């Protein structure tokens, strides 16, 4: 089976006029397959977001190559964007649009036929339980509702690949569980999901394979079982500390 995401030697150096370059991600390589949840585990500022932003074409890699759903992130960025659904803690919603208008707008950017789009929007609103609020402006929605609208926004075009950058950051337990359930359901539908987090319990609950990133470099990757065997530790926090400090 061909990987949905293939990153080889991805490196990002931010230019800084005062101190030279800052290496945010260095030589990151991994693969991710359909029907798999691949976790990127690391502390704040480890380079997870930078890696995911390179995969989603927001940032251009300084070195290395990456292909998403067969499209090169540099040479065919539009192709990549058609194939991904991207969601992060920092992405916002248009406060003065309603959820329905938001989905119509983003669906329109993907060139989805109007009739088909209407059906898709109704399906998503129902799936995520937000039909009741479909006509309310996003600025008036609760945090949980906003996150559900963000999820709908990311998958309105039914992409084969999902890139989720700390999607549960700042959410309460109830909303987090909705998000986790949603990610698990996506895997069941054969989507390829890259999921970054620094919450170890989410990794244990969701991820088929994990990569540990620290200070911009990939320290280890594999299944949880493989990482436990490699470090000789049982608990996930011990595994993580061992890989980061080692």
């Amino acid at each position: 089976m061909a990987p949905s995401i293939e990153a080889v030697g991805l490196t990002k150096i931010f230019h800084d006029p005062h101190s030279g370059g800052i290496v945010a991600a260095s030589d990151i390589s991994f693969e991710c397959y359909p029907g798999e949840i691949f976790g990127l585990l690391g502390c704040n500022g480890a380079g997870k977001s930078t890696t995911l932003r390179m995969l989603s074409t927001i940032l251009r890699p300084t070195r290395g190559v990456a292909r998403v759903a067969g499209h090169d992130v540099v040479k065919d960025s539009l192709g990549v964007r058609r194939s991904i659904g991207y969601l992060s803690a920092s992405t916002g919603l248009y406060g003065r649009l309603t959820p329905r208008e938001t989905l119509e707008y983003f669906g329109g950017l993907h060139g989805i036929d109007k009739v088909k789009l209407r059906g898709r929007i109704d399906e998503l609103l129902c799936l995520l339980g937000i039909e009741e609020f479909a006509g309310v402006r996003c600025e008036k929605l609760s945090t949980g509702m906003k996150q559900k609208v963000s999820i709908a926004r990311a998958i309105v075009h039914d992409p084969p690949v999902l890139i989720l950058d700390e999607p549960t950051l700042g959410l309460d337990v109830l909303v987090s569980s909705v998000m986790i359930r949603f990610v698990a359901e996506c895997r069941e539908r054969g989507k390829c999901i890259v999921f970054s987090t620094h919450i170890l319990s989410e990794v244990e609950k969701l991820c088929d394979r994990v990569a540990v990133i620290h200070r911009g470099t990939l320290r280890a990757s594999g299944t949880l079982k493989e990482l436990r065997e490699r470090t000789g530790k049982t608990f996930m926090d011990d595994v993580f500390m061992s890989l980061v400090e080692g």
Partner: protein
Amino acid sequence: MTEEARPWASVMGSWHIFRKEILEVLRDRRAVFVAFVLPLLLYPLLYLWLGAIANLRDEKRPLSIGVAGAGDDFFVHLSGLNLKVERRMLSDIEDVREGDLVVLAHFEGARVTLYHRATDLWSREALRRLRVALDAYRDVRIFHRLAEKGRNVEPSRIAAIDPVDLSSPEARASTTLGKILPFLLVIILLTGGSFAAIDVIAGEKERGTLEALFVHPVDRKLVVRGKFFVVFAASFVALGSNLIGLLLAQGLSAFLGRPVDSLGLTQAAIPGPWVAIGIFLLTGPLALLTSGILILISAYARSFREAQTYLLPVTLLTLPLLLLAVAPEATLSSAVAIVPLANAALAIRELLEGRLTVVPFLIASSTSLLYAWLVLRNAQTLLLREDLVLGVEEPPGGSSLDVRARRALFFAGGLLGVLYFAASSIQSWNLLLGLTITLWGLVLVPALIYPWIVGSPFLETLALRTPSLRSLLLGPLVAASLVVLNAAYLGLQDQFLPMPIELENIFRELLLRHQMSPPLAVFLFVVSPGICEELLWRGTFQGELEPRARPIRTALWVGFFFGLFHFSIYRLFPTAAVGFVLALVRQRAGSIFPCMLIHATYNAMLCFGLEALLERLKEAGLSGLLTHPFTAALALCVLVLSIRALRARSLPVREMAGG
């Protein structure tokens, strides 16, 4: 990244973005009220308010005054002034205090004392009417005195001069409108579109929606275009609201039969169809340019607040250009026709005054379009910059200056205060010695001591690094371009802020008056500023600001203070521009030495070379060559290319420290 789009898809893409943006703008009640509804109400309300003020000064209202000690002949002059006059005594002064009388005029020989209450509006009005009577009374008395002394003076010889204006009120109002309207147009276009511009890009960066948008298959150029047209529409609607408001006020004026304002603007005839079409054709490109400028600001800023902080200086920067258009002597020459904003403003003025010709009209509108296109392209390029798209992740300093940067600003401000008083005192005592002490003492010593006091690394702060050969070679080219641009700008400035002749020739005067030898002149005017001023402004000041603020912001601060440092309103803008360019040079070259070289060369050219060059050009019949707009355009190109060609030395790459 590959972001190509076919033409039709491009139009549809921009339209899709435009529709969403306009919906969002229209749903913002505060923005809609301020930009569109308020102007509709403002002018009629202003009219009613001004009318109320005028009513307060109603000359038909009779006012009670007292007159003490005046001869009967004075009372003749009070007729027709609507004053209820009573003969009183000086002892009735209490009646003025208590309000029974508004004024008491006491005549005592040749002296008249007017007792009144300045806090009372009617007392002030009565005073004004009384002065009219007193002036007439005085003139008649002078005439009689001269007659008594045997001088046979004809009354007409001392009669007041009474100019009679034969132009119609409509024509007078149109001339006034021609001066005010272009100024208003630009300000309304800038302010009317500002909210939409800031919200649709800088606001989106802050809210994280731009990042969400850019992970969808949409060309960033289309995004900029869609948003640009929203700003253009908002500017135009704001303009329309303002004009409709003015027309409503005019209608109200006609209905009530009273001019709306002291300038009589509402008496101006509504422009005929051709003039209206002409105004529209000029305003369109102008609105495209102002919208482009607003979008550029918004694309550059990382947050809503940061965009707002840029908006004020940009609006202020447009003022000198607009003043050029309202100056009494200003005409739309081919040179002025390529000056952004001023060209359209002046063309509208000439159109309203009925003296605009076709060629300047075409140049003004086409250059505005060209500038709009260039600005828009620049905005599109900015949105390809990763650091600007991810607005929330700011570099050190970000949008707010930290304590050390603020301290550096206070240091510079305080030093300017000291220099203003101390340097002028020393130089008035002995100019040559004073100049030397100012530069090598008051300027250089604080520049060298400050980094040591605040504990900054000395060499790094002052950028005392070996320069590249390229930066040194490009230095004279930068200096020469600055000299040409300076000459061109001063030529334009002469139209609205002419430099006094004594300032123009100040250098020659100094040389002659002090019989200065060439080496001494070079030391004082070339070497000393090149070293001392550079170490202060591009050295210490810039070095303290730079790690804590964004590069362009630092350069703007450095330029602003360098402009102030020259303590002359006439030289403020050109010296600030030179300071800004030198700050860019330090940033690009990574060393202060090219700045020193450019500064010294620039001063040498201005002091020793420019006058001789102008003489030569005059002899060759090319006196206007240096200040010709095409020479200036060429110099600007050379300057931009030279600065672009400067390259910072390669800096080390370091690991991201937890970030």
